């Protein structure tokens, strides 16, 4: 595959791995957080950790929009979908996300709710046009990457004067969440491990650019390297971070120059700004309330806002108290440190946010990496013997 295989070249990866091994200071450790679930997925799927020196550790951050959607919002969507006049349209990987008491959109569908999986916002619009007697609600979710398509759907709905189309907005924002990882009440409660730098999300930055991270890098004195999702992108970003740490720099660097600029896609940003405004606070599953961490429709588009149109309420619902997602998302604990991991909490029976989508830290570790626990324990066993 042209433009894909080039970024999965094992020989080149080994060469960069050798450069990392030569660059790292053996007397210290390097802790890097990849914020985005796409990076987590790439690291696990290609076994990237096997190529890194033992003193370079990747911490899997909260960057999966499906994972961070709180239970209450899923419950609210299910309650809406159960209303007879409603057709709820949603992206596929939301279907399995657990709500309260083991519920999910998949189960609600089986129980008779009209829930349809779509591949784009425009598919939902088509349904609204084709079935004027149904109230079609698009369950919008995602980071800055998927917000512009939702804005475009809204623009099209207004232009076509579609009276039966609305949006349940759950769009969330990346910079606010990264800040929350380092500075929030939970950090004081859980403690935090040292994070030496961040791999910034690539697709998000195609929209917002690298500039929004400048303040963050300066304020928290942490280097950020915006990187693509191919494994070579990620390992190159690690090398760039190692160099920054060794040099005592804390800059925003752009590894993903083939798609990301400093200012991003201003047309998309303007489109989003036209239809959406900041929420003062929004709950992220596993992180709690994140100030200015999400978007809602502007008041002038209230008739397209499903929350207002159908007087939706978000029930208060909590994760299993034994769930360690908050600590895992901040890098304080690893997936295997959680008592629920692999026992009651698996990708088939997810309990916490990190296990919900394949891009979550626990799901990625369970699906691709849990054999490493075995090897580690065997090594420890031999050391004890």
């Amino acid at each position, binding site marked *: 595959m042209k433009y894909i295989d080039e970024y999965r070249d*094992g020989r080149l990866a080994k060469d960069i791995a050798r450069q990392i091994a030569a660059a790292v200071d053996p007397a210290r450790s390097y802790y890097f957080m990849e914020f985005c679930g796409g990076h987590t997925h790439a690291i696990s799927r290609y076994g990237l950790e096997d190529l890194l020196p033992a003193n370079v550790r990747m911490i899997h951050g909260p960057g999966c929009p499906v994972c961070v959607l709180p239970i209450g919002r899923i419950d609210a969507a299910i309650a809406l979908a159960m209303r007879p006049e409603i057709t709820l349209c949603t*992206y596929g*990987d939301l279907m399995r996300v657990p709500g309260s008491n083991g519920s999910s959109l998949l189960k609600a569908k089986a129980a008779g709710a009209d829930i349809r999986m779509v591949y784009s916002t425009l598919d939902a619009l088509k349904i609204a046009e084709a079935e004027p007697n149904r109230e079609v609600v698009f369950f919008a979710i995602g980071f800055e990457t998927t917000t512009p398509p939702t804005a475009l759907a809204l623009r099209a709905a207004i232009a076509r004067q579609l009276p039966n189309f609305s949006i349940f907005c759950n769009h969330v924002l990346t910079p606010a969440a990264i800040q929350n990882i380092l500075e929030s009440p939970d950090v004081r409660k859980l403690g935090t491990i040292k994070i030496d730098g961040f791999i910034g999300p690539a697709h998000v930055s195609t929209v917002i650019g690298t500039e929004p991270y400048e303040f963050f890098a300066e304020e928290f004195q942490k280097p950020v390297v915006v990187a693509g999702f191919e494994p070579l992108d990620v390992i190159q970003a690690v090398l760039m971070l190692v160099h920054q740490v060794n040099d005592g720099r804390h800059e925003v660097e752009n590894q993903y120059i083939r798609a990301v600029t400093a200012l991003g896609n201003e047309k998309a940003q303007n489109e989003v700004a036209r239809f959406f405004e900041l929420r003062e606070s929004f709950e992220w599953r596993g992180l709690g309330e994140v100030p200015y961490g999400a978007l809602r429709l502007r008041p002038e588009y209230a008739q397209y806002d499903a929350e207002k149109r159908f007087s939706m309420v978000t029930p208060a619902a909590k994760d299993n108290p034994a769930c360690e997602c908050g600590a895992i998302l901040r890098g304080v604990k690893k997936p295997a440190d959680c008592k629920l991991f692999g026992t009651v909490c698996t990708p088939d029976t997810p309990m916490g946010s990190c296990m919900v989508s394949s891009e979550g830290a626990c799901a990625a570790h369970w699906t691709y990496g849990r054999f490493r626990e075995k090897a580690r324990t065997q090594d420890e066993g031999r050391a004890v013997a």
Partner: protein
Amino acid sequence: MNVAIKAYKRKLDITNGRVDLSHGAGGRAMGQLIEGIFHKAFDNEWLRAGNDQSAFSVPGGRMVMTTDGYVVSPLFFPGGNIGTLAVHGTINDIAMAGAVPLYLSASFIIEEGFPLADLERIAESMGAASREAGVPIITGDTKVVERGKADGVFISTAGVGMVPAGLDLRSDAARPGDAVIVSGSIGDHGVAVMSKRENLEFDTDIVSDSAALHGLVAAMVEAGGQHIRLMRDPTRGGIAATLNEIAHQSKLGFHIDEEAIPLKPEVAAACEFLGLDPLNVANEGKLVVVVAPEGAEAVLAAMQAHPLGAEAALIGHAVADDHCFVQMATSFGGGRIVDWLSGEQLPRIC
């Protein structure tokens, strides 16, 4: 921590639970449904063996019987339709016992309003497929249900066959050191079907690999039948599900090599675009065979000499492993687990 992790299984909630799509997706949920309802109700030694068919003794040898239901959407796809699939799939289930398929039955559940022209097209291609395979459809059944109670047409086929004397393939027969061979490129069928799904149409030249494999199996048995431990056709759940099933039934693990697995660039590209892992994507004309090391070369050569096994490749080996992990050396130079699919394979949001 205790590494002997045993995945928790939520019990089937018979009182309040409902069948959802994950129960038909070839993953753990489906296994749980089969075990919790059908195996419990039908319990016998043949079902407990966990094969896609059952061999049993009759005067004059060992016989194989299998049955399967086909509910594919769309009904017509590049390289076949639900009817050809119903013929090939059932023949292949028999062939995976190393057996010679003899006869098929076909049962149709048709939705009121279904176009007769489509039904004829399906039936004619089924007839052609069975004649080409030399396995006649000798009995059948037809039911029509009200509009809205079926998705066009559902087909069930059953088949019987005879196992050659001296051959006894068992699902728990794999041993550490055995070779794992796949008969050709993976994921072709799943991608061909997905390319024609509503809302997901994309341009691709990929056609389904749907084919009857008993001829290929006969060549393999002739070349090294005494060394073949077991065979499987990796349909729903792809080769990931197949290898995990074998690993758990034989109580061992597998080490496979990503670079050795045949994969068409177009299939790889489509999977990339859809966010799917080709190891989880369905096949309908491929098989996975586990062979004792001393017979691997002969079986592989026999496969490559057959048109349906021309791209056959040795992709790895069985290893002793209490955890029954299927591990893969990635083309990138790292390692990972190849796990069962969790629920239904759904496209990721980003």
